[in-house]
């Protein structure tokens, strides 16, 4: 039998099949981590979404903690903030935007005061002096206290109360007393009643590492002072200073100034490494259909009550993009930022030495392309994973194990089970029917009926080709095998006189479309032209149509299938996620081989759309749905009045292919097929059958082991179980079979297992 060379692990060479720039620009399409619009619009970068979430949950303590991160005096800020966030709130587009500032005010009023700061804080070594009073110095003192600088404020006021009153004269009594409490709890040293002027400034400047002043003080000391507004800094005088008007300017100014203090304290240029500051844009995608409460909660003059604030916060739809995660079971399974996952999968291919931890996710995507349709920005994980697999193959780092079974299956389809013949009576043909390897394995009777029908009703001769289109090696990233398969099939097509290929499967159609000069139609197109054969029958119940991922972006095929279903009289149920948005059944991309768990989740995802029987036009979908216990039929089964019945196991699939080939050879081409009989009797317990299907062990493998045993007599006998156990190395695996000898030439198989490691007798 054909074999595939296991990779070596010593030689390393590298061919990059996608550039870093390409992958970066692809990954950048995903906006998962973009800030919500309100947050982007806030110059102070309040995590609005999180704050609103906490408020909606009634957790005002947490909401206040989030708010205090950007506002050392939250009542002052919420009073004077101009709330640029509110204009950017996406809910504005369908109704009234969230009243963010009013919620903040309620959070500031009703949230618990945070615990005493400063006691357990380790203070920094570099000290800071702040001269003057007013909002800017108050906020700056608050910001610097958070950063744990020892701060001394020199001001003319007599005490904290007067200092706060000077800064925020607009506060009502309740708010004032709360903020006063907050100010007194802060670890700030005050020199009240200071006479602020050049004398004090010269006297004190040597005692501190960084000096700051209110705008008024700075200007009185240095009338020529030029403030760089991005830094809140006067370079000539090495003085951090205020500039601007109003609460928002003061708050944002204090933020920038605090960063400048940080840089100066470390004796660094305040211009560098400041990160992103201020408001920015966001390209986050938001599904606005989630916004249902469109009117604001009315605000009484005194502001929201706690309950009202909760109600208003609940209207926030928590902007975030998870469109692809909602529809793709693979992305949902790994549940992380899809762009980042794509990046990690790419980076995985760049590892030369060490663990490739992303191999499994890379091989778990079904390459179905649904994400590229669902994602508002067209992020295409299929492309990332397909390229990554090819990269891994080209560097000889791709493990063979996850895909070997499928690849061997393909070699079998295009080897022992392959058949290519012109219609009897023809040398060359106008058409060749290419049903696809899955249809042959799962519904051989349907394939036969379809072929006979095409021969009868089409002019010019219809050849038959039983084989695999090469999608398997494409999915596995084995581009060299894909090329070989392409050449092989092209040679066979040439023998038939390069006929028009009638594809029975949309994935084959897609794969074969990469062949130069091949004319392709779907059997659904032909049936649309020549009409249904006799005996075609719909299901009596309404059915859900599952679009194959091989037909994504192929509106023509999707429409032709619907027309066919209509002709059959099927009553189609409309389901969400159909057409181009259809999810993959779990077979695509070889997910079913590389990650059974994810594949099963994909199947469930398909089936959750309806309780009705499923009609599909890809045999792999039909098979996976039936295996999951759903009534499932391929549309050709209805067309030809056949029923492929219960899904076959992996050995029956091979058997079906061989049997169909031999039957047709005998009946149509009068050729005597190769003898398939074993010279001994071999039976299996039910448990052995189940075990073999689960462990991907074929009857052919078991036969190989027993053939070997009959030749060499090598086996062991386990007196505990009473079983004989023989083994044989076949290809890249060692197969073990536990059996009993029922009679001279009759064996009953009880268990089977395999491993890929080779075991040899040890030295010494």
């Amino acid at each position, binding site marked *: 039998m054909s074999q595939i060379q*296991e*990779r*070596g*692990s*010593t030689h390393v060479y590298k061919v990059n099949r996608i550039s870093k720039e390409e992958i970066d620009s692809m990954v950048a399409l995903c906006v998962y981590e973009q800030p919500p619009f309100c947050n982007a619009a806030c110059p102070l970068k309040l995590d609005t979404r999180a704050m609103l979430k906490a408020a909606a949950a009634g957790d005002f303590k947490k909401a206040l903690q989030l708010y205090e991160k950007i506002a050392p005096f939250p009542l002052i800020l919420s009073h004077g903030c101009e709330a640029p966030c509110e204009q950017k709130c996406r809910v504005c587009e369908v109704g009234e935007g969230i009243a963010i500032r009013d919620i903040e005010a309620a959070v500031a009023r009703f949230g618990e005061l945070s615990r005493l700061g400063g006691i357990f804080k380790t203070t920094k070594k570099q000290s800071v002096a702040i001269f003057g009073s007013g909002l800017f110095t108050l906020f700056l003192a608050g910001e610097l206290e958070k950063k744990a600088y020892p701060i001394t404020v020199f001001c003319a006021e007599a005490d904290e109360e007067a200092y706060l009153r000077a800064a925020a004269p607009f506060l009502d009594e309740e708010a004032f007393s709360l903020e006063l409490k907050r100010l007194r709890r802060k670890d700030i040293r005050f020199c009240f009643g200071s006479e602020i002027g050049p004398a004090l400034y010269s006297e004190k400047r040597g005692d501190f590492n960084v000096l700051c002043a209110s705008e008024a003080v700075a200007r009185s000391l240095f009338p020529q002072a030029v403030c760089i507004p991005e830094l809140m800094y006067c370079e000539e005088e090495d003085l951090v200073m205020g500039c601007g008007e109003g609460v928002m300017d003061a708050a944002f100014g204090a933020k920038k100034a605090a960063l400048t203090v940080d840089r100066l304290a470390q004796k660094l240029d305040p211009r560098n490494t400041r990160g992103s500051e201020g408001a920015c844009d966001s390209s986050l995608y938001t599904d606005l259909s989630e916004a249902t409460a469109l009117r604001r909660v009315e605000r009484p003059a005194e502001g929201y009550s706690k309950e009202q604030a909760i109600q208003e916060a609940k209207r926030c739809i928590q902007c975030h993009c998870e469109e692809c995660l909602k529809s793709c079971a693979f992305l949902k399974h790994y549940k992380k930022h899809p762009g980042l996952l794509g990046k990690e999968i790419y980076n995985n291919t760049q590892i030369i030495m*060490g*663990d*490739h*931890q992303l*191999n*499994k996710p890379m091989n778990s995507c079904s390459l179905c392309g649904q994400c590229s349709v669902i994602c508002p920005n067209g992020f295409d994980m299929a492309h990332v994973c397909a390229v990554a697999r090819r990269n891994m193959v080209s560097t000889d780092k791709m*493990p*063979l*194990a996850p895909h070997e079974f499928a690849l061997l299956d393909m070699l079998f389809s295009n080897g022992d089970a392959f058949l290519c013949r012109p219609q009897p009576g023809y040398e060359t043909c106008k058409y060749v029917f290419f049903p696809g390897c899955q249809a042959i394995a799962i519904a051989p009777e349907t394939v036969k009926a379809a072929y006979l029908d095409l021969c009868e009703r089409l002019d010019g001769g219809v050849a038959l080709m039983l084989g695999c289109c090469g999608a398997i090696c494409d999915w596995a990233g084995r581009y060299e095998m894909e090329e070989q398969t392409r050449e092989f099939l092209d040679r066979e097509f040439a023998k038939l006189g390069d006929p028009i290929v009638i594809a029975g499967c949309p994935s084959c159609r897609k794969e074969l479309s990469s062949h130069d000069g091949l004319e392709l139609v779907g059997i659904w197109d032909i049936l649309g032209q020549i009409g249904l054969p006799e005996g075609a029958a719909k299901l009596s119940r309404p059915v859900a149509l599952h679009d194959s991922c091989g037909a994504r972006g192929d509106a023509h095929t999707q429409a032709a299938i619907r027309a066919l279903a209509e002709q059959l009289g099927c009553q189609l149920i409309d389901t969400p996620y159909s057409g181009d948005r259809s999810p993959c059944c779990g077979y695509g991309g070889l997910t079913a081989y590389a990650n059974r768990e994810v594949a099963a989740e994909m199947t469930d995802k398909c089936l959750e759309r309806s309780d009705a029987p499923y009609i599909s036009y890809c045999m792999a979908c039909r098979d996976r749905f039936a295996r999951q216990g759903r009534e499932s039929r391929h549309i050709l089964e209805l067309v030809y009045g056949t029923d492929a019945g219960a899904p076959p196991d992996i050995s029956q699939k091979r058997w079906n292919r061989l049997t169909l080939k031999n039957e047709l050879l005998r009946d149509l081409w009068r050729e005597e097929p190769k003898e398939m009989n074993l010279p001994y009797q071999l039976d299996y317990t039910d448990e052995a059958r189940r075990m073999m299907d689960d462990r991907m062990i074929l009857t052919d493998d078991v036969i190989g082991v027993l053939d070997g045993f009959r030749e*060499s*007599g*090598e*086996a*062991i*006998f*386990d*007196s*505990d179980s009473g079983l*004989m*156990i023989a*083994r044989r190395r076949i290809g890249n695996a*060692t197969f*073990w079979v*536990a059996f009993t000898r029922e009679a001279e030439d009759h064996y009953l198989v009880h*268990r089977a*297992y*395999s*491993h*890929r*490691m*080779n*075991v*040899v*007798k*040890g*030295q*010494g």
Partner: protein
Amino acid sequence: MAIERTYYTIDPQGKLQCVKCGVPLEKGKAKFMYLANGFPVELPVCPICGFVYVPEELALGKVASVERALEDK
């Protein structure tokens, strides 16, 4: 000489017989090889013909997990 660590050891305890040679299997040295890596182990081995027996639990347990780890190297 480097000391070879033995990664796994299993004793047949007289319950296993070589069908061909008709003698009990004994604990003996063997080696697992995979993707250019080798692991010394002690497994039931026929003292005459050298048949090395890999029990099912070992194949599906330890061996399988080491295979996965090496495949992703």
